């Protein structure tokens, strides 16, 4: 037996018209969220790092982190969430980085910006961590 399961097609499509037209196919696992939330990272002289969440899965899970960033002219927080990780350049020089990465027990955030402006060094972030291992 192998021809069993559930398929749900998008409106106006049949379930036999291919995966791209499906909303759900029980043949494939769905990602399952373990943690999601928000937080703030406080920078000191433009630098800061923290453990966003301890997942204790003992493997590196799939995750997303989005964080606001500092304006390159004013140093103020730009409330437009970007997905980590990325670096900003000024010419060929690196002027800031916004890194998020996983360990077997935690999700970490590491930020540095040469654009910091005292009094504007608290950045909001959001995150999602899945139960699903990626390797």
């Amino acid at each position, binding site marked *: 037996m192998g021809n069993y399961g559930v398929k749900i097609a998008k409106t106006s499509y049949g379930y036999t018209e291919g995966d791209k037209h499906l*909303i759900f196919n029980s043949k*494939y696992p*769905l990602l399952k969220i373990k943690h999601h939330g928000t937080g703030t990272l406080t920078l000191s002289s433009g630098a800061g790092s923290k453990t966003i969440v301890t997942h204790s899965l003992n493997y590196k899970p799939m995750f997303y982190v989005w964080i606001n960033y500092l304006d390159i002219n004013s140093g103020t927080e730009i409330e437009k969430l970007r997905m980590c990780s990325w670096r900003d350049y000024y010419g060929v020089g690196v002027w800031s980085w916004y890194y998020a990465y996983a360990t077997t027990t935690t999700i970490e955030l590491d930020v540095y910006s040469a654009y910091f402006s005292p009094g504007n060094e608290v950045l909001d972030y959001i995150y999602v961590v899945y139960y699903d291992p*990626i390797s």
Partner: protein
Amino acid sequence: MSENYGIKITKATKDITSPTPADYHFWSKYRAKSVKYQGTLSVTTNSGSDPAVATNSYTHSFGYIPQFMVFVTSYDGRYVNCNYLAGDDYGKEGDIWGEGLATYATTTQIVVSANLAYGIPQSGTTTGIVRTYTFDILLFMEEVETS
């Protein structure tokens, strides 16, 4: 056909009649992410002067561009999302290393690439560092939709 069809699974304490998507673990009215392919790709960076970017690919043959996630362990030991750029001091004072880890998908393939090198500003030279990366890849059933 009636539009009143599909599957709903609510979170604990939530009612099946709730109009709020966040009250559900699954609601077939809305797109989710289903893992259609999961695997790894290895890439070994090149040595020598001004090294070429090293690439590898997996042929998925979905016939459409799928949504995807790719993770890899960077030169400085971080398990990160692609795309990723990093760099820092290397060897003698003033020398720097740089790393570029990237990925993209087409209707038939997912492609990963890596470049790792160190530079000596005084001489203007760039020399490759040989390192093998293992990219962890997830391809989702869901298409990259433009509408």
